């Protein structure tokens, strides 16, 4: 406290959840589970994600408040299960049983990254064809995307997929 004041910083206290709306719009938080969009409301386990692709889409789910965080499309999470042998170190550290999670929103102009190019194992955005490598931290392989897909580090809680840490970068895109 003293230190913060001395540095002239303002530290906002962690807000008690104001209301349901805010919780729904809040980005994925550590401990959140994941539920399939438009599917079974049961939280997902690694085995629910198809081996070898394609990706499925999920909302973060706060088990304490029983809130599906579907209040912003920037919360959409893409889950993909691949052979972890091909993952780079950072991706390995964020994966659970070969399942990797990324923001589903293309950082170029905000479309959903909906395509899976199985032969090259790349994710593709249908809007302007940016391609991403899910085995290498979502790195941009081609197209106009200005930065990698933000990754969502995972862990396991009671056999379910859970969020270990927040998105590695801001989810979303630059509005011009």
């Amino acid at each position, binding site marked *: 406290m003293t230190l913060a004041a*001395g*540095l*002239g910083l303002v530290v906002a206290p962690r807000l008690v959840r104001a209301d349901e709306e805010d919780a729904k719009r809040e980005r994925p938080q550590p401990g959140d589970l994941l539920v399939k*969009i*438009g599917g079974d409301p049961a939280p997902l386990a690694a085995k629910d994600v198809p081996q070898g692709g394609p990706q499925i889409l999920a909302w973060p789910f706060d088990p304490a408040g029983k809130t599906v965080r579907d209040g*912003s*499309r*920037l919360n959409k999470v893409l889950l993909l299960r691949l052979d972890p042998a091909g993952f780079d170190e950072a991706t390995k550290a964020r994966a659970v049983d070969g399942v990797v999670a990324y923001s589903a929103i293309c950082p170029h*102009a*905000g*479309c*959903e990254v*909906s395509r899976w190019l199985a032969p090259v194992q790349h994710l593709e955005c*249908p*809007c*302007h064809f940016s391609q991403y490598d899910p085995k290498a931290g979502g790195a941009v392989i081609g197209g*106009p995307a200005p930065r990698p897909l933000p990754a969502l580090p995972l862990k396991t809680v009671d056999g379910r997929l859970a969020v270990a840490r927040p998105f590695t970068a801001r989810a*979303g895109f630059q*509005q*011009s």
Partner: protein
Amino acid sequence: MSRYASAAACLAGGLALMLSAAAAAQKALPPLPQPSGPAPVPAILQNYKPVTADELKKPGDGDWPMYRRTYDGWGYSPLAEITPANVGQLKMAWTLETGQVEGHEAPPIVVNGVMFVATPGNQVLAIDAKSGDLLWRYKRPIPEDMLLLHPTSRGVGVYGDKVYFAAADAVLVALDAKTGKEVWKTKVEDYTHGYYMTLSPLIADGKVMVGCSGGELGIRGFVAAFDAETGKPVWKTYTVPAPGEPGSDTWPKGDQWKTGGGSVWIMGNYDPATNLAYWGTGNGGPWMGDQRPGDNLFTASVLALDVATGAIKGYHQYHPNESWDWDEVSPPILVDYRHNGRVIHGLVDVARDGYLWELARVDGGKIAFVAGEPFVKQNVFTSLDPKTGRPHVDPARKPGTGKKADFCPSLWGGKDWPPVAYSPKTRLLYIPANDNLCGTSIGEKVSYSPGERFVGATTTLYIAPGADHIGELQAWNLDTGKKVWSHPFANSQLWGPVLATGGGLVFMGGTNDRYFRAFDAATGKVLWQFRTGSGVIGVPVAFAFDGKEYIAVQSGWGVDSARMQARLNLVRPYQFPDVPQGGSIWVFALE
């Protein structure tokens, strides 16, 4: 210690000192002085005269008060100081950066010596049209989670003491022309469900009319009218009928109508004599017609709407069961022309489907087909029904779900959104066309998720073998139905809105070499060109101040021009290099 190390140590020490000084200062800092009262209003704005309904019907020669200057959509200014003889001496009067990237497509609207310019990023600028002084700047944040597929604005409307702006996030805003402050704002639709706005509002009969984009995001298109004074909704007419409404029998029995598309991208044209406005409508959604069997009224059509009530009084559908992404983006212009010896009280549309359509305004708002012919390479329509104009489609050239088809023109069409111009002096219609572009499309099943892409197609673009040009400025004589001249662009597509002037000139940019050009209106000869910082895809205008003629346009490449450039660069690598983005306003005059 080396010189560098000691310098670094010095710097580090200095920094530490500065930091602690800053921390101390932070505590003691007095509050920033607050400006007292509102900013002073510049004289030119204090004297701003309210724009009357009559001025919108018949603008002063030196004004450009709406998207195409006049309700008939001509894009014509009678100003005649700048001519083919002197245009070679045209010089820059002033320029101003907008501070935005993406597509700068709006015309500078000029009334009372004040210029109002809409830019991407939900921004409106008010500028002293003569000096280039920035008078005010309005900016409305775009929600961070908004999927805005076309980050652009096609301009503001002016009426009374207000400036009307169709904000990207589907909110209609009325600004005080003198201060740039919001007077009222009205939510038009829900952006989280894919609705967004790119058009300039149409102002007539005391109402402000807008429509929504979002045909790629599963919207149901409409035109809506709001009271110009209060912003209260007056009427809303969907371009896709609900079950039981007229035209609903052209849709299948399911829920397709709810996400049926029919976007409204561009301000309608207006006939004050009948109080009818003519609006172009977009393609159906999703893209493949076999997922919504039927003609799908009123997609890919022109609609005649009664401005008093919103009632649909007439329509013409250019092509039924749209499957090529040929939105009928722009409305037809209102013009009388000769056809087979008769004078037609007409409508003329230069359509994305590659046809020039001659239509007639008949009693009660009905729209009759007169003639149609291709103005670019078109291989989809084998013929037109001579009575109704309904095209006979080559089934091999119509894509479907799991069925790939190859067709010309490409999905961007023979002419996309950039408006044509018509000069009553030359009686020529000036068309910014893209010729020799073709493509393929194949459909796939797609499921609807609110606010997400709802297209269901994979497309390609290619240049027709043997093509010697892509972009082409064409001039057509409406009385003979013949092309009189054309100016081809060998290595560029064309995204240039056109301006015609009483001085016998045509102005247009739109090419990837960043030039803005003047053409002889009678012959098509290039008489002047000026290179700006980015590509010029803005609507050019002419205005006058103290009797002097000015030409104004925005430069700022983006949206479709840039996307087509990226696709062309795949086809002919390195021949269509990146065009830098960044918006600016350019004003030219004779010295």
